[in-house]
């Protein structure tokens, strides 16, 4: 079929959706296989695990008339068939061929159209034929083997397919919008009930109204959790592309790396996941390029030649924690200090943890040389900004000679956030509850002024307490002392925020900031409260960061 004449245009998306994850699995398996072969493990199960996927990809591609994909899948099948035979040479050449082929397959399917790089596919097939040419008996065995598979292997997912529908994600967003309106209207109803109760006093009808409003709330929260579940995807959908990329970076850097992925089934809102790939990729590449040592250096330091890179995900108290750790050399504190001083940051008083936090400051990359990585992707500061924009936090721990770990804490969803509503200078603000440790009555005698900053004892620690009006830039001086403070936390940072009133807890629907508002540093979004008023959502991470830099 000629390029551009694909009669199945509408089906192309379906093809990609079905085939790309399979191709990624195959690609990952080949990377794993290469690692095992180097370690002396034959990896038979890994080799066996890809045959079904390759076969499906070949069939799908043939049906769509996508010849390059079909040919590459076919060539890989032949190659695997040959390698599965006893005595086949499982050396670096075979491994490199498999990894290249797996990557090519992912690339081709990802940008699926019949006219993508036929040259690359042809070249690859020529290499495979060249390789197999050394062992001509393989091609004779190939077809029989494949036919046997066709008979014995039912297609994965056949049984589930009947109950699954594919929905455009924008429809889920639209549903969420409607649900958001429902939640706002419920708050309005509840408010109305309270006003009625004050005006006419308790009566039977009002009691029923109260019950109805209450059950409406339960219905809405059931609807919310159901809808949220449909928006959730396992993090493995993002993790999928990492093994090959880590392998590529390791090869380019001359490192040996084993990537260990756990918790791939942890779920996150697709809207969060979509923006997580880049920062994670950066952290992983960074670990390989700068964290892990060259094999020779590792052995001299008494470590295994192969570096260990861990990518772990887990649900932790309503949020998702993702950790990227390596057993490399750890952050170079001397280099960080030197770079920071060069940028005019005074680090004399900084302790180790504070020094480590500096890696998230723009311009403070400690890489002492430009690698192939440095050119692409983002800096650590940009990665941290993306995480913060998602309402997440990023922390780093490191020990010299033992390695570094970056821990991300992310909200499961961005759309609906349980928040504490507070009042400051007659305006209401929402503080996401995930960042609220406690609300405390502010007794004037418990807050001392040190260097013009309020300081108080909280759970045995000294924390700063700042006036919300000053933080938000809305307060007029000489106001009466505010009666409460909210202890806000983000990672290891804490700070009290003095407010006028605590209104209560509420699920709020996050709405964005109009571009006309610029980019206020203390507000991450807006929401509509039950009485129809708009409230700003405080960006706790940035407020605490600003406070830290201000100090």
């Amino acid at each position: 079929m000629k390029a551009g004449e694909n009669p199945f245009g509408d089906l192309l998306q379906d093809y990609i959706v079905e085939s790309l994850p399979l191709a990624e699995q195959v690609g990952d398996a080949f990377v794993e296989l290469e690692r095992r072969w180097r370690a002396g493990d034959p990896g038979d199960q890994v080799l066996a695990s890809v045959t079904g996927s390759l076969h499906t990809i070949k069939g799908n591609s043939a049906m769509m008339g996508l010849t390059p994909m079909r040919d590459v899948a076919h060539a890989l099948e032949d190659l695997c068939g040959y390698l599965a035979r006893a005595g086949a040479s499982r050396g670096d050449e075979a491994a490199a061929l498999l990894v290249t082929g797996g990557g090519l397959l992912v690339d081709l399917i990802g940008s699926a159209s019949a006219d993508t790089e036929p040259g690359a596919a042809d070249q690859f097939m020529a290499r495979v034929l060249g390789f197999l040419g050394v062992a001509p008996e393989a091609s004779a065995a190939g077809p029989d083997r494949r036919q046997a598979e066709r008979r014995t292997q039912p297609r994965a997912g056949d049984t589930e397919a009947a109950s699954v529908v594919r929905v455009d994600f924008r429809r889920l967003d639209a549903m969420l919008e409607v649900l958001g309106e429902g939640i706002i209207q419920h708050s309005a109803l509840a408010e109305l009930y309270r006003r009625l109760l004050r005006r006419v006093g308790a009566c039977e009808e009002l009691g029923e109204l109260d019950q109805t409003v209450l059950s409406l709330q339960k219905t809405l929260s059931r609807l919310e959790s159901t809808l949220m579940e449909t928006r959730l995807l396992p993090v493995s959908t993002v993790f999928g592309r990492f093994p090959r990329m880590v392998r590529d970076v390791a090869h380019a850097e001359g490192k040996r790396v084993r990537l260990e992925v756990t918790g791939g089934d942890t779920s996150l809102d697709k809207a969060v996941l979509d923006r997580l790939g880049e920062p994670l990729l950066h952290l992983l590449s960074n670990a390989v390029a700068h964290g892990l040592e060259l094999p020779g250096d590792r052995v001299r330091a008494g470590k295994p030649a192969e570096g260990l890179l861990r990518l772990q995900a887990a649900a932790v108290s309503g949020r998702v924690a993702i950790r990227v750790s390596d057993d490399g050399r750890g952050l170079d504190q001397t280099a960080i200090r030197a770079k920071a001083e060069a940028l005019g940051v005074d680090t004399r008083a900084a302790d180790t943890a504070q020094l480590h936090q500096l890696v998230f400051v723009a311009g403070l990359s400690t890489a002492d040389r430009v690698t192939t990585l440095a050119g692409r992707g983002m800096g650590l500061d940009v990665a941290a900004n993306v995480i913060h924009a998602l309402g997440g936090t990023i922390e780093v721990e490191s020990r010299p000679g033992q390695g570094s770990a970056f821990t991300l804490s992310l909200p499961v969803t961005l759309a609906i956030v349980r928040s504490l509503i507070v009042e400051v200078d007659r305006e209401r603000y929402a503080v996401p509850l995930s960042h609220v440790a406690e609300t405390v009555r502010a007794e004037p005698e418990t807050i001392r002024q040190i260097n013009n900053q309020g300081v108080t004892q909280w759970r045995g620690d000294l924390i700063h307490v700042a006036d919300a009006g000053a933080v938000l830039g809305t307060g007029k001086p000489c106001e009466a002392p505010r009666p409460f403070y909210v202890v806000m936390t983000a990672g290891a940072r804490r700070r009290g925020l003095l407010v006028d009133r605590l209104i209560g807890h509420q699920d709020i629907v996050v709405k964005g900031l109009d571009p006309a508002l610029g980019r206020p540093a203390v507000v991450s979004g807006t929401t509509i409260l039950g009485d129809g008023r708009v409230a700003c959502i405080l960006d706790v991470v940035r407020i605490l960061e600003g406070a830290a830099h201000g100090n």
Partner: protein
Amino acid sequence: MAIDGRAAVEPLLGFVDALPAAAAGASGPAPTLHLLTFALDREEFGIPITQVREVIRVNGITRVPQVPAHVRGVTNLRGRILAVVELRTRLGLVEGPVTAASRIVVVELRGRTLGLLVDRVSQVTKVPVDSVAPPPEEVVTAETDFLTGVARWDSRLIMLLDLDKVLLLNA
């Protein structure tokens, strides 16, 4: 009070440019501009009604910390968050109080929807194109930069605002 901005009206962007052409073809009824006029202090301003989506009462404007000076805040427009521009400070006047007569003129410009806080909305006014003159050059104030012209008509002086310039936010 909603105004149908999609009534058949003259295209109005760049009214001043249209003047010579209108003067040349002076046969038949003179072409007119349909303006929504509103007041800031004692001055009357006009914008083409094609740019106006609706006019709403002021029902709570929430201040947003750390925004540009000419942004008054945000308000709830039927479940959507609408940014409200303080037109007075934008045009070099002092910020005024919100009164019962205050209105938010919701405008649509280049695909964006914004609110303009004004002291009061007068009416939709038809102004003959030939009553519009360029802004007087001898008067140079903060606001003249934002004018496309001045209409003298029916003993009124209406200053025609160039919303593109007024709302060129953060520029």
